[in-house]
């Protein structure tokens, strides 16, 4: 178990900067997810932590030891690969025991550990099988067993669920999270799936073009995105520009293209009067026929997509398009004119 620290980390591939000056501290036993679109540098960061890449600049610390030059086999990490990377020529048992053998653990001790892990992941029946004879979900669990059996300092996950079907994915991510909590191992998890990131993490690191956009717990990341990229990448968002007309404490009146809005920037950086700001709010913050909220908006429904529990609405307000959601039972169809209320706390003020 250990804390993990990246300071000023840089990694180039030829002329491409894959990781661009990253700082990150992960507490002992914390579950941190690196989230971002493909090519954002999240996998490179993970592989640098594992030791498959050596950093061009900056340091990787496990605890207070600099790991920059330590080859992967001398680092006490364990990685779950997207492809599982099970050894096809070895049985499930041999796959799981591989790391212990490399650590020259006595066979009797190995046996106890392997049996416990296999029990935990309900693999006990499969010890003699070869990876080729297992289902995707079983292979996933073997990969997980193989990585946790060595009780590493840091567990690394490289999109481990992307080859599973949707239902299994939800089930396994719960298992991973429980396992990690029980063992108290520091974990870094890479994914491009925001639902997965929100569901599994203590903290989420949003990355884009090799840089960190925002670090925060899932609630903060979702409710208070700090940048346009984060607002757009996580969930759905309406993003607009506006000029601050008036500031009163944390409450600002902002002139947006579709009309004036009242934003309460409590807990956020309060903008100056006269500044041009970007701000966003979630479609579900547009409460249909809500007369109590400070902001009242009326729009024409361009398209209504019935999703079962909710209806997705594409509306037009004074010539500007935005998205809303309705959980109202009344059926809404294109062409309807609908009024919405938006709470003053619903807005996030965004950096560039």
């Amino acid at each position, binding site marked *: 178990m250990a804390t993990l620290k990246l300071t000023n980390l840089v990694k180039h591939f030829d002329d491409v900067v894959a990781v661009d000056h990253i700082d990150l501290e992960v507490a002992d036993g914390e579950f941190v997810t690196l989230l971002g679109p493909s090519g954002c540098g999240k996998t490179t960061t993970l592989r640098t932590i594992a030791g498959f890449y*050596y950093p061009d600049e900056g340091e990787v610390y496990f605890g207070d030891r*600099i790991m*920059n*030059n330590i080859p992967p086999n001398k680092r006490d990490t364990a990685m779950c690969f997207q492809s599982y990377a099970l050894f096809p020529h070895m049985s499930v048992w041999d796959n799981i025991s591989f790391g212990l053998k490399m650590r020259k653990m006595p066979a009797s001790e190995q046996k106890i550990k392997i049996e416990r892990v296999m029990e935990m992941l309900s693999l006990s029946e499969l010890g003699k099988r070869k990876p080729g004879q297992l289902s995707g979900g079983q292979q996933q669990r073997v990969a997980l067993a193989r990585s946790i059996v060595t009780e590493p300092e840091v567990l690394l996950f490289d999109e481990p669920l992307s080859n599973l079907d949707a239902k299994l994915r939800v089930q396994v991510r719960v298992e991973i999270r429980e396992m990690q909590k029980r063992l108290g191992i520091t974990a870094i998890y890479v994914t491009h799936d925001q639902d997965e990131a929100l569901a599994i993490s203590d903290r989420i690191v949003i990355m884009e073009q090799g840089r960190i956009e925002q670090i925060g717990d899932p609630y903060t990341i979702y409710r208070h995105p700090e940048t346009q990229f984060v607002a757009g990448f996580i969930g759905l968002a309406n993003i607009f520009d506006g000029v601050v007309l008036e500031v009163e404490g944390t409450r600002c009146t902002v002139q947006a293209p579709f009309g004036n809005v009242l934003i309460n920037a409590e807990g956020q950086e309060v903008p100056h009067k006269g500044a041009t700001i970007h701000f966003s709010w979630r479609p579900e913050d547009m409460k249909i026929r809500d007369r109590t909220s400070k902001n009242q908006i009326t729009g024409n429904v361009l398209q209504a997509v019935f999703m079962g529990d909710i209806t997705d609405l594409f509306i037009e307000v004074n010539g500007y398009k935005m998205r809303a959601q309705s959980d109202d039972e009344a059926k809404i169809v294109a062409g309807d004119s609908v009024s919405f209320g938006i709470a003053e706390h619903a807005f996030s003020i965004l950096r560039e």
Partner: protein
Amino acid sequence: MDKTMAMPLYLIKKRRIKRFYLMITLFFVIIQLLWVGIPIFMAIMWSLVNPDDAWSYPNLIPPSFSLEQWRYVFNYTNIARALKTSYSIAPLAVILSFLLSLPTSYVLGRKDIPGKKVFMLVVLLPMIMPGMVVALFLSRVFNLMGLSQTFLGLVLAHTLMSMPYMIRVMTTSFASIPQDVIDAAENLGAGTFVKIKDIFLPMIRPGLIAGMIFAFTTSIEEFNLTFIIGTPTFETIPTILYSFMGYNFIRTNASVVSLLMMTPNIIMLFIVERFLKSDYLSASLGKM
């Protein structure tokens, strides 16, 4: 020096690793150049020895050069005739093996017939079977059929030896045509003739060229069967080289003939490398 002193330790180490890999690459380059280059270089040297100025120990290269050896080989040995024989057998063997292989390759490549694996193995037999055994006892068969010491017999023997390559490569290329393409052509109204002309032939062409090159080089190189069935009536380049390397070893003659035999093949290698996917190379090598 100052610059490296200022660098953090791990960066210096990284540089060292890079330099280490560079050294390894360089090492392999040199070894390979020596491995392949020196033997060929020596053969060239031997073929250029001046007969009036002997090359002997301890000289590492001949004291003077001349083309006398080349002139001698062409004027006073049977090499010219052997060249003619070799290069008349090879094209005939290539064409014959192509014609014989075409229908079989089509079936093996496109039809899922019972016992296909067995057929694929049987087709490899001429390549797998020990050459001298086949040569000796095929000569008995040829004796019975009156084919021994005949040109036709040699063409048939060379055809037999080049067919494994031909069939393997063409089977691979037939099999690699997606069924969708054929279905689409049929769907658009292509008849059998159009299908052959516009779909099959263009799509197997790379495989066909590869197969022909392999068949050709096989024929040019063929020794065992030619030695048993053809000599002394017919001499090809390999059998004449063998005679130069036998009990009366004439190194200079042998080097001239070696170079004659090897040059077209190396040109072929570069053609294959440049224009063909290496899949054909491994397919023809008959991965079992």
